[in-house]
């Protein structure tokens, strides 16, 4: 069974995604979760959970921030509220949250998600042994490594198959500090659409923005693993995440639909290179023009980046 997991930017889009055939909605509030397209209130999460459950779909809520003292006290009531709403699972990246979860909301399932820091089977198994029902793999892991990891792990491993991927989180307001220094007033939120490029590489375009969790920088190109889905399936990587933080509205829903078609083709045994080409071409055309696409570390060799 392939599980398609997608982010949402509104209640309406969340419902549209459920209608179009995803399996799990990934949402949350930015006080608790990192880099979400939209910060959902508990009421909105409840509305979408009810809607998802009626359609026999699931909801995963992001609780994967790094919590400082001022916020950690609010985590227990939040987890209890999520438990009461009967969401299906949360993502967690701060071990303190696991401790709270076990005491305060023991029926809530969690997936370990510290992105960059999940790079081996033994790391995943460490968290599984402490109750995790799955893990989100770092995007800096190569295909060759994936093949070694998978047989050692008994739980689902989530892979990003489409969208932007974060490569840096600072607690400092790095962009605001810069604009203050040059004495300019600027919006630094993700809606502003700011990029940085490397020295002497003018055509690079790393997205950068700030929110209450600090400054976030994303990889030069967004991930697209449509051409590699058969390899994922053959190696039992069947949990596919679609990240819509920089792909808005109907465009994101349309791209998600392409992956729904791919999933259905796989499940019907009808996946072909020709179909892949068609879906991939449609994806490239739909993808925002100012953003690039590539297959990231999936196509690198383990020795390329040491």
């Amino acid at each position, binding site marked *: 069974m392939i599980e398609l997991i997608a982010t949402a930017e509104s209640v309406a889009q969340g419902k549209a995604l459920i209608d179009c055939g995803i399996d799990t909605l990934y949402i949350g509030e930015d006080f608790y979760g990192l880099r979400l397209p939209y910060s959902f209130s508990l009421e909105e999460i409840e509305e979408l959970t009810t809607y998802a459950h009626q359609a026999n779909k699931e909801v995963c809520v992001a609780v994967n921030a*790094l*919590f*400082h*003292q*001022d916020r*950690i006290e609010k*985590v227990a009531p939040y987890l209890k509220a999520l438990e009461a709403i009967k969401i299906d699972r949360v993502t967690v990246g*701060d*071990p*303190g949250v*696991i*401790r709270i979860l076990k005491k305060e909301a023991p029926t809530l399932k969690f997936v370990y998600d*510290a*992105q*960059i*820091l999940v*790079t*081996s*089977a*033994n*790391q995943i198994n*460490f*968290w599984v042994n402490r109750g995790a029902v799955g893990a989100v793999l770092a995007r*800096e*892991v190569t295909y060759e490594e994936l093949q*070694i990891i998978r047989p050692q792990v008994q739980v689902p491993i989530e892979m990003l198959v489409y969208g932007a991927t974060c*490569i*840096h*989180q*600072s*607690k*400092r*307001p*790095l*962009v605001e*500090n*810069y604009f*203050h*220094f*040059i*004495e300019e007033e*600027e919006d630094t939120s993700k809606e*502003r659409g*700011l*990029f*940085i*490029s490397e*020295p002497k590489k*003018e055509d690079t*375009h790393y997205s*950068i923005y700030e929110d209450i969790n*600090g400054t976030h*920088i994303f990889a030069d190109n967004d991930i697209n693993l449509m051409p590699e889905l058969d390899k994922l399936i053959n190696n039992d990587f069947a949990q596919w995440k679609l990240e819509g933080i920089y792909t808005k509205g109907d465009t994101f829903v349309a791209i998600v639909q392409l992956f729904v078609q791919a999933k259905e083709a796989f499940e019907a045994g009808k996946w072909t290179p020709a179909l892949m080409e068609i879906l991939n071409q449609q994806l490239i055309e739909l993808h*925002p*023009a*100012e953003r690039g696409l590539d297959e990231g570390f999936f196509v690198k060799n*383990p020795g*390329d*980046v*040491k």
Partner: protein
Amino acid sequence: MRTITKKPEVLAPAGTLEKLKTAIHYGADAVYIGGDAYGLRSRAGNFSFDEMREGVAFAKERHAKVYVAANMVTHEGDADGAGEFFRTLRDIGIHAVIVSDPALIEICATESPGLPIHLSTQASATNYETLEFWREEGLERVVLAREVGMEEVQAIREKTSVEIEAFIHGAMCISYSGRCVLSNHMSQRDANRGGCSQSCRWKYDLFDMPYAGEHRSLVGGETEEPFSMSAVDMSMIHHIPELVENGIDSLKIEGRMKSIHYVSTVSNVYRQAIDTYCADPDNYVFNQEWEDELWKVAQRELSTGFYYGVPTEDEQLFGKRRKIPVYGFIGQVLSYDEETQIATIQQRNNFGVGDEVEFYGPGFTHFTQTVDVLWNEDEEVIDRAPNAMMIVKTKVAAPVKPFDMMRKKK
């Protein structure tokens, strides 16, 4: 009179055996070093097992401790042999390992029981629940994330019994440590496996794309300053009372790549400041010479990081840099003859007759003088000491001891 007997540990970096000995001579209670594997400083001098044995023996004689940083985030295959590695460290007498990768923590705990584990700052521990999680996992100590403020330290201290270590001096990651792979993506070098290329200190263009593909640069203003994330360094020398009173167990100095000049100076200053405070906290007076000393080995401006609020543009390296007085390390005292007042010195950088030089030593002794006579090893009068590591003799204005250092303003 109130005194404080439970002093925090001064923890200094030691990239080599020489730096380890220097740090301990200059007052460090503990040093942290790297092994041949599993660490984050592939370019820092790392210790062989034999060097570790010598370092541990040296430290034990002086009641100091040696920790080994093994804070890599492993990929498949990287943790092979780690159990044997940790067992060897334990048997050598290493006091603890500093780890962030849970796979390595598990290997260490199960395959080398008895070797204490410290959670590296790479794991970004920022709240007491997280510290409690690791305490329950059996860890002895947690190094706090550099983003934790002084009030947070206080609140965390009240709610957990695990040992707390915090950075007080040196360069800082601009990201939450560990949560940065800029280097992996920009330089094909893994930041969490010892390859960090410090991409955060580069100069970037910052732009938007009002029309697809069309870059509209936003950098500049009147100063033409490019976008950068580079931060100034940290120094908590002005806040020793709060660091002690908040019950931090270990005060950590950054810099395994730094020189013995740096290691000796910084260890010396913090040793002196902490001893001064703990001896008579109620009548403590800050000594400006401590700060002046730290400036002599500073590479960048100094700040208090996140201890007293989120850093602003003033704590970033933008614009014209303040001129930092640069001192060069020129020699180390090997011996001293009280009768003749002649010191034998190993040269570390060119100096000669007429130069104004400063001698300093453990216990915060220091004095300045002009070199007025210089002999080589064969007792021949010379004008300068130009050759690396050459042995020279000179007359000194005050008594010196082996391990005392000599520096000169550049």
